[in-house]
Each structure stands twice: as C-alpha cells, then as structure tokens.
C-alpha cells in the first residue's frame, strides 16, 4: 500500500499566499483550465485526452448482443473505468480507493444517466439484436482532476466512434464492412462535461485543480453541464460547507467554460476528420 506523502507546510503556505493574491503556481488565473489536448488513435473511437499533465485514454468498441426482455428497444453502454497504478502509485489493481469510487460513480452519472447516448438508436432488431457499446477508460497519469479529463476523453471517444452500417431485411441483418459502406456516428443527445472546482477556506474557488491543489483544498464541487446551459449532475461530496451564492457563481462560470470546451472538441474532431478517410462513397 503506497501512501501519498503530504506536501510540506512551506509549500502549502506558499500556495495559499499566492491564491490569496489570485495567482496559481502554474501561472493560471483561478478560473482557468489547463490546456486541453486530444490525440486520436489509429482506430475510430480511440482518443487520448490530456488536461495539462493529466492524461486519460478512452476507447469505444461495439458488439451486437441481445437486449433485455423488458427493454427490447434499448442498446447498452458499458463503462469500464478502473484506475490502475499507472495513474499514480496510490491506486492499486483490484482494490478501489474512496477517490476512485467517487470518480467512477460520477463518470457513470455524467455519461450514462444523463442519457448522452441515444440508447434506442442502438437498436437493430427489436427484442433481437442491439448494439452494445463498451467504453474503456485508461487513466494514464493523475496530475489532478482526473474526472474532468476522463469525462472529456469519454465524450470525445463517443463522438469520434462510428459503428458499422447495418441493413435489416425482414429478420436478416447485414453488417456492412467499413470498405463497403461508411460507418455511422452514434446518435447523441448532448455533450455533458464535468467541471471540478476546488475550494480553499476564505478564498474564491479555482477551476481544474492540479494534484497539489486538490490535496490541499478544503473541498471540491463538480458540476456536469452541457452546452445548452443545463446542469446534469451536481456533486459536492463533503468538504467545507458552501453558500448558495458561491454555487450559483461557479455554475455561471461553468456555462461559458463548457461551451468553450465543446468548441475545442468540435475543432479537434474536424481536424481529425480532414486527415482520416472514413467516407467511401
């Protein structure tokens, strides 16, 4: 069991003193995110997202399965999000820590329970065959704020992924190979993205805390929002109590941030599309 070493008190004092002046150690202003970068893999649905030095790899695959009897029109979305020791030695294989459970639960809520993916559109043959999407997340490097990075990576991978085109003739299903017919993108309702704010006592909140900031903060608040100005998930698990005004404040900031993030995602996707041959017609 590898324990995290507490940062030295001098470092803590320095960080707090800087924050009191509205400065952060990496030169950001309090409500600024680190740089978002996307690296697309060879296959569709394979995206590595980097938020500063935090890195998460997301991979989407699809297979055909039988739907549940009580929901014959619905496909599946499975999320595998186990944090391994590659992210940081404090995470162990097969033994989930509290923070790991918190991250995976929140991800589940922000991706699956917000109905980001139209699951009924995954149906091929009612009661017979539906698509099962499997989203596997690999947490490569935990340099703070794994959750936001993971949600970005997941949404990006889902947007990037395309499933093979299918044709239904009576009871017969024909799956067209990518060479034959261009694969089709997933039907998505919206793009919910997580934003994590960290609080310090008597100081204004900061967005996208680094690892050091998140170990020293007195509490975090995660809002999941979409570009349509809607709050999908709001999570404040413990930490110092917050006033209503403070929460409203970060939500207002979040609205603009999520819009910017969606814009960055779309630009990155567009750029990738130019370099990739998907269409065959």
């Amino acid at each position, binding site marked *: *069991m*590898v*324990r995290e070493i507490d940062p030295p008190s001098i470092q803590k004092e320095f960080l707090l003193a800087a924050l009191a002046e509205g400065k952060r150690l990496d030169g950001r202003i309090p409500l600024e995110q680190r740089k978002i970068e996307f690296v697309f*893999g*060879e*296959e569709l649905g*394979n995206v590595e997202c980097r938020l500063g*030095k*935090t*890195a998460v*790899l997301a*991979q989407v*695959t*699809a*297979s*055909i399965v039988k739907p549940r009897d009580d929901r014959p029109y619905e496909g599946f979305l499975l999320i*595998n999000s*186990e944090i*391994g*020791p*590659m*992210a*940081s*030695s404090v995470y162990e*294989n097969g033994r989930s820590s509290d923070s790991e459970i918190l991250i995976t639960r929140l991800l589940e809520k922000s991706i699956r329970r917000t109905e980001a993916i139209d699951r009924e559109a995954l149906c091929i043959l009612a009661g017979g*065959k539906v698509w099962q999407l*499997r989203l*596997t997340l*690999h947490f*490569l*490097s*935990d*340099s703070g704020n794994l959750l936001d990075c993971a949600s970005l990576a997941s949404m990006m991978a889902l947007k990037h992924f395309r*499933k*093979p085109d299918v044709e239904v003739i009576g009871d*017969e*299903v*024909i*799956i067209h*190979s*990518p*060479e*034959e017919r261009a694969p089709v993108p997933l039907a998505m309702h919206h793009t919910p993205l997580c934003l994590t704010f960290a609080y310090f006592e008597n100081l204004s909140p900061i967005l996208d805390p680094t*690892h050091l900031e998140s170990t020293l903060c007195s509490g975090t608040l995660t809002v999941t929002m979409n570009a349509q100005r809607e709050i999908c998930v709001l999570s404040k698990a413990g930490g110092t109590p917050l006033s209503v005004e403070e929460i409203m404040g970060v939500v207002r900031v979040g609205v603009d941030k999520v819009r910017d993030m969606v814009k960055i995602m779309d630009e990155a996707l567009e750029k990738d599309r130019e370099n990739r041959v998907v269409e065959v017609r």
Partner: protein
Amino acid sequence: MASAGPSRRRSDGRKPHEIRPLTIEIGELDRADGSGRFGFGATSALASCSGPLEVRLNQELPTRATLEISHRPLEGVGATASRALITTLESIYPSALRLSLYPRSLIQIIVQSLSSSSAPTLSTGRYNESPEIYIDTEPETTEKNVWPQPPTQSALAVDKKEKSPNTSYNFSSRAVSINSATLAILDAGSIAMTHLPIAISIASLSDDDGLVVDPSIEEEYNSIARFGFAWSFGKNVSLREDQNQKDSNMDVDEEEDEEMELIWVESEGKFDKEKFSDALELSKIACRQILSEIRAKLGETLECKRLQ
C-alpha cells in the same frame, strides 16, 4: 493475401527485413517515476515504472524487492491474454533488474496496450459480430470477416499449442510491451539494471518464402509460423550477475563491445530447425537496430533534461 516473396516487397512496401517506423517516447507520464511509449507502426504500448516504493506487509520480501508487473488491455478488462503477457514479462524482468539491491520495497511495472488485442483487423474484424448473422457480398473476403476463426486458418495453424489469435496477443504486441517496459525502467533510472531486454517479432509467411521481420497484423494473421525473440544487451551480460556493478543508463554512449544474450523466445506454428535459426539471426540484427534507436532517443531525452 499476395505473398511478399517474389517481388521482395511486402504489402505495406517494406523490404522483408525492414522494421516498421518506431515510435519511442520517454518520460511522458507525470506521476510515474519512469514511463515509455514504444511502437512498431500502429502497434504500440505505454509502460510506466515506479519504485522502489513502500510495500504491502504481506508482499514484503526480506532479501529483495517485490516486482509487481501488471498489464491493461485496450478494450475491456484483463483476461487470459493479459495474464499470458504478464507471465512473459515476469520471466524477463526479474533477471534484468537488480532486485536484491532494494529489499523490502516494491517495484511496479505497468504496461498498457495501445492497440487492440483481437488480431484480424482486416475490414470488420474489430466488431465482434455473431457469425450467424453475418452476410458478406464478396465471397473471397468472407472467410476473413467471419468470427470466430475461418476453417482455412485453423487448418494452417496445426500446431497443438496454437491458440486462436483472438485469445492471445500477437507477437508484435508482445514485443512492444517488452520494449516499452524497458524504456520505462530506463527512464525511471531508480532501479539498477544488469541488462537491457529488447524484443522483436518475426513471421514466416509460407514454407518456401523467406522470413519477414516485424510482421504487420495482417502478415502475422496470414503467416504459418510466428516467433518472438528478446535479446538482452549489456556488458558482461553472459557472466554472473554479481560482476555487473553498473547501471544501464551509463552505457548510453558506449556503442562498441556490447554483449547480447537471448532472454525470451516464443514461437508458434509450423517451422523447422533451419527456419528457427534463420529467425534467430534476423532477430539479432533487428534488436541491435532497435537498441541504437533507443540509445539515440534516450541520449536526446537526457540532453533535454540536462538543459532544463
């Protein structure tokens, strides 16, 4: 699949003994002591290495460090294929690291595959369709698309130890895993190494054809025999361990008088003794080539670090 023999060119334009362009990246992960990304073309892996760390009491060894090697597949969770790969890595690294120098500590190596484990990615291989619902309009490609294995492939793969490529990693995935782990340990620099394992895969496309070095996924899928070799480099690698008192990081500049020894061999399929020794010789050359690329890259990385 057209045979690569007569034209002396392979389907991707390479010569038979040419390896794919290498991706070597060192030290990209922030929270691990060392990390490395290694790739042959599209087949790649990322590894991290941390240690010596605090060890769990029940894993503590009084005379040497506990080496924990884990692997994560790109899709889903680790299964048999993953376990097999870990066994391979576990057979290589305990001898390459000087674990006795760090008693009562933990050394972690984590390998993350960045390419999919299912071998045939020809056309639709990536999607696991059920075979009974699959209809293809082109008869010649049908057998490639059907999952599980088409009968022709299993007829070729007569070897009793042969598993279907869907249940075990292909040899280039195994080779990149080994190479990336080596890079990660090198980058960490906190664990003394006795030698440097470097791996390559080789395939034999047909009985009369020559061997191809670093086969692509399709080539490996259509081959009759596949080999994986790892050679260990280092001074006095063939002598006893206690005579080596140096860190592998030190021999970055020493090009000459290196010694190499075979540290890992895995092979499957149909081949004779002659073919095996040919493959062995080819692997030697290829591994040397990879080593020199790693050296160049590592030198560059160290230079950058010194400048900062």
